[in-house]
């Protein structure tokens, strides 16, 4: 359910790190909790942010949820496809439903995030 190659936050974001950069999204658990997603407010490319800062908002039919930056960094690219097809976050949260790619301020911060088994024990699975 939650892939082993990703890192996770207690706020239900995931991070996929590759050479100082990372892709950010929300977890399968999070998309399931939200239900049918109808809008994703994406950050602007070039924006710098601190860990824990709100970088976006996800709206489902019934709920509104904020997206928190898992670590400090800068937005390199956002998933424009979500503009027309926000439901991709429901359909493929760890893949095509990614939110943004970021440059990591301090790659060492990633070590403070959870691995898949720690995240799933947080969820009580």
């Amino acid at each position, binding site marked *: 359910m939650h892939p082993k190659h990703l890192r996770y936050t207690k706020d239900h974001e995931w991070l996929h790190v590759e050479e100082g950069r990372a892709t950010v999204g929300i977890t399968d658990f999070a998309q399931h909790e939200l*239900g*049918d997603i*109808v*809008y994703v*407010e994406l950050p602007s490319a070039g924006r710098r942010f601190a860990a824990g800062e709100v970088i976006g908002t996800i709206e489902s*039919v*019934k709920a*509104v949820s904020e997206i928190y930056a898992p670590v400090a960094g800068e937005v390199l690219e956002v998933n424009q496809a979500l503009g027309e097809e926000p439901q991709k976050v429901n359909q493929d949260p760890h893949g095509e439903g990614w939110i943004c790619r970021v440059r990591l301020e301090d790659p060492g911060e990633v070590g403070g995030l959870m691995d898949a088994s720690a995240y799933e024990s947080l969820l009580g699975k």
Partner: protein
Amino acid sequence: MARRTPLYSVHVAAGARMVEFAGWEMPVQYAGVIEEHLAVRQAAGIFDVSHMGEISVRGRDALSLLQQLTSNDVARLGPGRVQYSALTTPAGAFVDDVLVYRIDEGDYLVVVNAANADKDVAWVVEHARDLDVAVEDVSARWAQIALQGPRAQEILRPVVAGRIEDLRSYAFLKAEVEGVPSIVSRTGYTGEDGFEIYCPAESAEAIWISLRREGESRGMKNAGLGARDTLRLEARMALYGNDIDETTTVLEADLGAIVKLEKGDFLGRDVLKRQQEEGTDRRLVGFHVPGRPVARHGHPILRDGIRVATVTSGSFAPFLKQNVGLAYLPRGMWEPGSSFAVEIRGRQEPAVVVPTPFYKRQR
């Protein structure tokens, strides 16, 4: 501790997500709000609405009591007919919005919102003093199942011993459902054709299972409170606590169709008569937000940067695939085409007044 309907374990077994609503543990969704919503528009959906309250009003003075407490004309309610109405405050606002069933001569059933049930019973009892009428909260006795959608009739037909195909809209019959004496009413809260079935609490599970069996091959889906809310909003039906309450009059809510001034005196008549003559200062109207962010209950409405109103209901509308909402707009702003802004997370989203209902079924 939230109360559970007789169908609680059925919902859990079906994988429903349960939430607390008006003191009840209710299914908010099963497969997903959009899928359930579309099933009701295109085939059928089955809802547990057993949280709704039922008040029995019987006796020689039952009619005059209900005439005094409601805005619609109960004298015009024929046998076997149902009437949408308002329990009014002395200021012409809503104690609750209700359905009144004329079960028999001097025998009425008033169906009320779950959140208001205790308040409503107390209200009716208080006004029944010195009258020849018995007021009884019979909510616990009844379960209620709503079966809604274009295929509702063919799904319900095999399990009812009665001619439901002859039932007009807002009519009901007393009939056996799976052999159990029940009330089958051609009413609903979705904007579709459909039925609401009142059955004894202990029979609810058997009836639900029978309807599931009949509906399975006909595209029927379990539907939760989430879809119920989006469906009623598309059909522009008011939700008590969001769109109407004890501060909004029946005419401000644009429900003039249930205000019958000519029937004689009733609570709030003076205020409503004056509003009818002079017009109201605000009106509940529908609007459309062309942008993607969703206007929701509580969001401010601005005109030229000044707050003039608040969104009472707002949602993505799954069938229309648009963001729509309701709000009390001031005179001069409520005509279709009038534009304003909804403030969503600090940003102003353009919106425009549109005619309602947003969705109207093809007959």
